[in-house]
């Protein structure tokens, strides 16, 4: 870096593509490291509907869901007075294994 006669700083000559090349080298190194040392996280297939996070895409009404064994819970959605009822039907087992279907409905 040198100062020119007008007092402004001259910019360093930049070799085109150097940054891209090093980025490529780094990305390749990271990909290799991820392949060798990385560990995949378990896949998640949860479905978002309104403010609910459900095991399956909603397929029944909440009234149908609220029969037999079920879990229903509410959450506020968007505007201040809109609530969703989230429901999962089925026996309580681990995670979604014993859920037969999901449903939700939102109302003010």
């Amino acid at each position, binding site marked *: 870096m040198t100062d020119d006669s007008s007092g402004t700083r001259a910019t360093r000559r930049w070799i085109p593509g150097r940054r891209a090349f090093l980025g490529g080298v780094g990305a390749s190194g990271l990909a290799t490291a991820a392949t060798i040392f990385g560990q995949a996280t378990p896949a998640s297939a949860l479905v978002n509907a309104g403010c609910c996070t459900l095991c399956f895409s909603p397929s029944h009404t909440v009234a149908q869901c609220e029969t037999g064994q079920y*879990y229903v819970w509410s959450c506020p959605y968007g505007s201040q007075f809109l609530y969703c009822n989230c429901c999962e039907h089925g026996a309580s087992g681990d995670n979604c294994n014993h859920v037969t279907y999901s449903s939700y409905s939102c109302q003010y």
Partner: protein
Amino acid sequence: MVLVVFGVALLVLAAAMVVLFAMMGELASRVPGPSTTRRDATVRALDEAQLGSVPSSWPPGLEAGNGNGNGNGNGSTVLLVLSTICATCADIATQLTENPGHADWGELGVVVSTSNQGRGNDFVARHGLGAFRHFVDTGGDWVSDQFGVRVSPTALVFTAGRLESAYVFYDVAALRAKIKKEREDRQMQREDSQMQKEPT
């Protein structure tokens, strides 16, 4: 011959250093900057909560000290009620543990309402809630039986073991500010009423 071997080794080492620094640079470019997420700071009262309730029992996990040296919820406790089925609750859990989190909130306890124990345990583990006093409430039975609450995310504020107020919220920092202000206001009211009672 030895010089050639050393030369090749040095070359390999230099190349490895270049790759290492290139990887660090690439990694740095992938890390997002400080979060600029703007959350709704609304904190509003939850009408359906049974204010004044004193729980008949405190479940395991919530009975430890609550920051005031009082066990069994006899002091000033704040319970955050989250649910595995509520999308916003995952964000609340993230707020509790990340950037910078709320580990300093001594009176905090977390209730995770869930359809089954396994899903609740997963939620706690995934969001690092094990660092807080917590209870996995299967079916949401305890929190709904004791306080009539079946909504998340909500905050239940206890004073002297009694449910004093309940809120729906989206931003933990805003909730803390609201609770702090509410307690300061109540303290001032108590002091005012005491001063009025004292003979002049």
